[in-house]
């Protein structure tokens, strides 16, 4: 019994390192930078929902959203370890480098997924837990295992996985799904394509090497630039829906318009970037890089505006 319990696993015998470094690897498995934005949009949904929730329960609900997003990220890293090794952007991930054994990462992801859903159910209600479970399943099975390697629409449809948190946050308070969280869902859903296509323009060779059918790989850079503008226009329209439906006040309305103008200007620059006949940038994709960074600030500021608007409204 003892000999089985103490038998070293693959990860035990991996590259020697400090305990801090190992803890950091496990933390990186949860994609903390992605989780931070997911948590913020989930917290916004929770914050603006009508009704009361105890601060401790609200904290647990947000913790569950964070853990679930991280768990889905860990399972994604386990499944994608073959293509992650081929891409410069992901080649240093802990599974690829052998610092965490694939089976350990999978187990970690599965345990955290179930734990987050069960805890969400116990702390809040079945609706929030069900949508949380749906978001994990969507990211793992629909996006990671199906769409990502099979269609250039991967991040268009797969974007839904990252759009669930505002609904989850709202449902944690109310126990149902209202119009406003659905609008926030639509905003994140339509934000995802221009955000990732801007990245994929300058990471195109990485994706091509790994055989991931991102839009610039399958349809070329010129087509991707037009799609970025198209989806930014659709995103702008979606952000104005709360204004049209009179769901928000002046803080959100003004912020949304200003942020939309900024995003449209950035995406227009991507379209007009100096490029060769096939649409490949001659400026090292400077506008695409700027658009990617702006899109991150855009979403954070837009959801911050939603919360401030609710606070002062």
């Amino acid at each position: 019994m003892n000999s089985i319990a103490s038998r070293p696993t693959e990860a035990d015998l991996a590259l020697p390192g400090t305990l801090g470094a190992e803890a950091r690897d496990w933390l990186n498995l949860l994609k903390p930078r992605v989780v931070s934005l997911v948590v913020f949009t989930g917290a916004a949904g929770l914050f603006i929902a009508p009704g009361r929730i105890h601060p401790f329960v609200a904290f647990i609900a947000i913790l569950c959203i964070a853990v679930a997003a991280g768990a889905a990220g860990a399972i994604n890293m386990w499944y994608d370890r073959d293509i992650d090794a081929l891409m410069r952007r992901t080649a240093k991930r802990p599974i690829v480098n052998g610092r965490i054994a694939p089976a350990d990462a999978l187990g970690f992801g599965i345990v955290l997924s179930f734990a987050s859903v069960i805890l969400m159910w116990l702390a809040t209600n079945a609706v929030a837990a069900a949508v949380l479970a749906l978001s994990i399943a969507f990211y793992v099975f629909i996006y990671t295992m199906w769409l990502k390697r099979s269609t250039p629409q991967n991040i268009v449809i797969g974007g839904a996985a990252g759009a669930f948190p505002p609904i989850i946050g709202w449902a944690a308070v109310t126990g149902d799904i209202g119009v406003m969280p659905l609008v926030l869902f639509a905003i994140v859903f339509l934000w995802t394509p221009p955000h990732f296509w801007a990245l994929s323009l300058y990471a195109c060779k990485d994706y091509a090497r790994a055989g991931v059918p991102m839009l610039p790989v399958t349809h070329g850079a010129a087509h991707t630039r037009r799609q970025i503008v198209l989806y930014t226009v659709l995103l702008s329209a979606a952000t104005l829906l709360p204004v049209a439906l009179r769901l928000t006040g002046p803080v959100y309305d003004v912020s949304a318009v200003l942020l939309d103008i900024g995003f449209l200007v950035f995406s227009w620059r991507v379209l007009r970037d100096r490029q060769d006949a096939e649409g490949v940038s001659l400026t090292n994709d400077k506008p695409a890089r700027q658009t990617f960074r702006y899109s991150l600030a855009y979403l954070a500021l837009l959801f911050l505006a939603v919360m401030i608007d609710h606070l002062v409204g």
Partner: protein
Amino acid sequence: MPPAEAREFVRRRRGRNVALLVALVALCLIFYGLSMVKLAAAH
């Protein structure tokens, strides 16, 4: 297993045990807190 490798293995195993302990204590505190909140709400 060579001594150096064994030491590394023991060190890693101890680190994971500590992490597990922290996780279990955190879970206990969460469930205690949730119970208190729900009891208070019921009264």
